[in-house]
């Protein structure tokens, strides 16, 4: 018959935090995990849980990504970017980025200039947001004109579907 309740206090390394010191270089940087702005040059100490890898993005930058799809736990450029997300790290009056794409496997980008460069530009003034997708070059069979872009601002999680056609 159990007559005692015993508590074993076990410290678990799996739920612990790591607190590295991080150097923030000149400029304003957005900490990806918390959307916190840091102004450099400065040193900061962060609490980093096991789930996190500290990533800092230049404020104002636009980072092209593709949506998370089921099963896409591997990284490969072989499949075309059927959809793109443009993550804007703090909306400004204007900004943009480029996205390079080729067949992801052969050297035809070099041998026969078979590649595509997509340009994304936006303007934001008086509360009006405008975005434009253009191509420098389209030689791929799978032109990006038919592709959709999913746009979201980093802070508001606003998703807009852009159709470039």
């Amino acid at each position, binding site marked *: 018959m159990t007559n005692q309740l015993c508590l074993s206090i076990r410290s678990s390394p799996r739920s612990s935090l790591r607190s590295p010191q991080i150097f923030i270089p000149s400029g304003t940087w957005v900490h990806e995990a918390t959307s916190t702005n840091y102004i*450099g040059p400065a040193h900061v100490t962060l609490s980093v849980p096991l789930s996190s890898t500290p990533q800092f993005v230049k404020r104002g930058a636009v980072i092209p990504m593709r949506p*998370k799809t089921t099963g*896409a736990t591997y990284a490969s450029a072989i499949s075309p970017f059927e959809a793109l997300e443009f993550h804007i790290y703090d909306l400004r009056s204007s900004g943009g980025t480029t*996205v390079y794409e080729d067949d992801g496997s052969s050297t035809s980008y070099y041998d026969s200039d078979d590649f595509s460069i997509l340009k994304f530009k936006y303007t934001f003034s008086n509360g009006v947001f405008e975005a434009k997708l253009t191509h420098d070059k389209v030689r791929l069979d799978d032109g990006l004109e038919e592709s959709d872009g999913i746009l979201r601002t980093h802070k508001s999680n606003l998703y807009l579907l852009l159709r470039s056609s």
Partner: protein
Amino acid sequence: MTWDRLAYQPYFSSSAANVGYGLWSHDIVGGDGSDPELFLRWIQWGAWSSIFRTHDRGMSSGGCQVNENGCNLLFPWDLPQDLFVHARFALQTRSRLIPYIYTATYKMHKSLKSFLRPMYWDFPKDTDSFKACTIDGEMSQYMFGDEMFIAPVVSPSDPDTKLATKKVRLDKEQSDDLDCIAL
């Protein structure tokens, strides 16, 4: 594989840019599997490095012979479930970042400027950027393309900040390790 080997990686890979070596991969291994936290942190560093490549049977590693297969075989899904979800997140994030990484690689092809490079390439006037990535991993930062820098965690959890979990055991045996109350 040990923590100090992981701590060396960001310094090694970013410094390689100084001699024009822009795509240096590394063996993502978990040692003998006894330290899943090390494996997880290595996967995370791998997800934000030039080439993500988990280790194989030792074919690429020369003299690595710890068993009949060469090196140990460990895969992300071998991690305990509570750590696997973090590894999966890192892998998914890398997959989602492919448009950024692939474009950065193309820029490297055109400019010969490595996309994984020391902080001081971009911020030479910030003298502390020269100390932002050290050989012992005390600091481990590097530029990852033109728009972001990464500071992967390359050392084990700080024992001072550990959170505690309570494990309840119903046991007749008394132990000095246990705080017991009479029922």
